[in-house]
């Protein structure tokens, strides 16, 4: 008996060894204590919707079910759990609640099975087994669950088959097996699920939160068609959006606005951003650029602004250096620039460049997404790599499509005769994908001294084409 009392003074002063002892150990104890107090009062309703696959419909049902209790959690693909102990007297007891919940399911064209039990897994298991049980007393839990088939627990097929071979087909039978042997033969996970079923260990379910979205409508006092005035009318909406986003610590990348007219169908105008933004004024300014390119068929009577998808916005610190100074980076500026350019010129107006391993010049490059914001490169000095001197000379400019040149006496002409400078470079490829080319490329120089990249087709009629300018 001596050692325990002797150890006590040290527990407060010695720091807990980091890493070795699980940090959750004391929390686990706390969780147990509160759980024991809460468990007596919890009543879970398990809702099983057979033949129900769509998660979005399940979420809709969860949103409706939130009028009964804030503690609703989803069990995809076909289950819903509600903690109803506090709501019983508000909805006319268990019978009233059952009626209301069944009513909520009716618009979705499904017939739910509803069971009540002190633990969430027990309620759900009973519902999945098709038994509308009502278990109020924790002491009756194991007894009531005993006749249910094992399949309701949704264990792996292989485990169930092995249990069936041993003659274990109901929950009652599996609960009677010795714990240590069960864990060894069928896995700790299965034992843990039995413990949550009977309430030996707490079953913590994450509450469902309806996705937050922003939507505002503003009726105008008079019909407006001037873009400047429309923007002024939109300003309060963008202010509200900014406050909303800051309050939720979120940003948006996709924003939509609808202009409602008297007769014409409403005009929709969407704004996409390169990075999440939470600044209402900046969004308003970007939207102003976008609005300039939207034709309005009629004056506008009402405005609607909505953002469906909110993204978590992480605030960042500003750099000490200005971009362009030694050590300065230009991340924010780059994203802002892309947004501004796209808002005014359209989404496809900004793009990047990349090479492709292809011999046909028209396929050797590809337009890509705009380059990512400038970031410090880990490979600080790339001066050594990249430049391959063995490559044949290529022009800096490429024509979008080869341009046919006039030929006199077998030589190409463009503002006068062209002088061929180089030996031909033959590019003959692509016979396998239908885009076959067979060309002899030359560097040529025209009367004004401009160096051009021309080719002569190897097939009849041996046409001369201009394909690039050396610049």
């Amino acid at each position, binding site marked *: 008996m001596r050692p325990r009392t002797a150890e006590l003074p040290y527990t407060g002063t010695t720091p807990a060894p980091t890493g070795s002892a699980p940090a959750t150990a004391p929390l686990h104890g706390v969780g147990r204590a509160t759980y024991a107090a809460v468990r007596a009062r919890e009543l879970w309703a398990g809702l099983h919707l057979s033949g129900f696959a769509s998660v979005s419909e399940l979420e809709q049902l969860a949103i409706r079910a939130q009028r009964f209790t804030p503690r609703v959690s989803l069990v995809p693909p076909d289950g819903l759990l509600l903690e109803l102990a506090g709501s019983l007297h508000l909805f006319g007891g268990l019978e009233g609640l059952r009626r209301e919940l069944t009513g909520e399911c009716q618009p979705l064209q499904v017939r739910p099975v509803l069971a009540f039990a002190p633990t969430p897994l027990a309620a759900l298991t009973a519902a999945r087994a098709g038994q509308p049980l009502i278990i109020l007393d924790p002491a009756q839990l194991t007894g009531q669950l005993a006749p249910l088939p094992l399949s309701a627990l949704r264990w792996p097929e292989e485990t169930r088959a092995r249990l069936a071979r041993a003659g274990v087909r109901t929950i009652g039978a599996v609960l009677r097996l010795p714990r240590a042997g069960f864990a060894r033969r069928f896995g700790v996970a299965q034992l843990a699920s039995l413990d949550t079923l009977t309430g030996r260990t707490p079953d913590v379910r994450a509450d469902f939160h309806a996705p937050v979205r922003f939507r505002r409508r503003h009726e105008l006092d008079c019909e407006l068609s001037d873009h400047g005035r429309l923007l002024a009318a939109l300003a309060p909406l963008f202010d509200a959006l900014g406050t909303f986003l800051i309050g939720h610590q979120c940003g948006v990348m996709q924003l939509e606005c609808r202009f409602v007219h008297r007769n014409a169908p409403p005009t929709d105008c969407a704004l996409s951003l390169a990075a999440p933004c939470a600044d209402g004024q900046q969004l308003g300014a970007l939207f102003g650029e976008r609005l300039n390119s939207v034709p309005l068929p009629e004056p506008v009577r009402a405005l609607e602004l909505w953002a469906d998808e909110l993204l978590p916005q992480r605030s960042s610190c500003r750099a000490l250096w200005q971009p362009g100074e030694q050590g*300065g*980076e230009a991340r924010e500026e780059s994203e802002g620039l892309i947004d501004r350019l796209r808002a*005014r010129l359209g989404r496809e107006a900004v793009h990047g460049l990349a090479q492709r391993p292809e011999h046909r010049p028209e396929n050797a490059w590809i337009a890509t997404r705009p*380059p990512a914001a400038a970031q410090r490169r880990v490979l600080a000095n790339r001066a050594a790599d990249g430049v391959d001197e063995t490559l044949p000379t290529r*022009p800096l400019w490429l024509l*979008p499509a080869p341009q046919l040149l006039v030929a006199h006496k077998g030589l190409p002409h463009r503002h006068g005769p062209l002088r061929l400078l180089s030996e031909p470079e033959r590019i003959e490829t692509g016979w396998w994908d239908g885009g076959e080319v067979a060309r002899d490329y030359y560097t040529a120089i025209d009367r004004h*001294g401009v160096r051009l990249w021309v080719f002569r087709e190897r097939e009849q009629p041996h046409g001369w084409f201009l394909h690039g300018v*050396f*610049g």
Partner: protein
Amino acid sequence: MVVGDPKIARLLEHPAIWRGRSVAQRSGLSTGFAALDEHLPDRGWPRAGLIEILVGRFGSGELALLMPALAALTRSATARWCVWVAPPLVPFAPALASCGVVLDRVALVGGARRQDARFRGDPGMWAFEQTLGSGACDAVLGWVRQPKPRDIRRLQLAAERGRTLGVLFRPRRAAREASAAMLRLSIEPLAAGVRVTLIKGRSAHRGAFDLTWPGS
């Protein structure tokens, strides 16, 4: 000061004489052509400001003249973007890469993919000014149709604000107009290089000189 006078040049070589120019020497961005560096005010392209390159015909070698500098800019550790605003043709990615330009720092605005008459007018100018002033770019190359002197002044101010090298390509007949650009040069193609004529430059050496391409 008579720069070309050999007596004064010898006198200036004395180590005790300190000249303000020697500090400024490092501020420019080397063009990659020693002869050109010598003639330019900061011994290279300005790092912040607008320059004009005037050509008789498109493709006279104006782009090749810039390539070594663009390669150096895109290869630095803290490289910002190099943006091409409304290029008349497609910049050919393999050629850029073989000149040493890092392609993931290159962005194109509008240009050959977008055959839109509306774009080449005012929006091209707008995009050029926005890009120059944003601070997100190391260099911006722009092809703008008939910019007015007031527009060029705006571009110059935007380039200074964004600490960006702006390059405006114009036809040679624009040499007669006044311009707010820091540096103006006109180029003509030669057999294996270009002849560069400095039209305007802050304390630059005037006159024409020939450059030869490194490979030829």
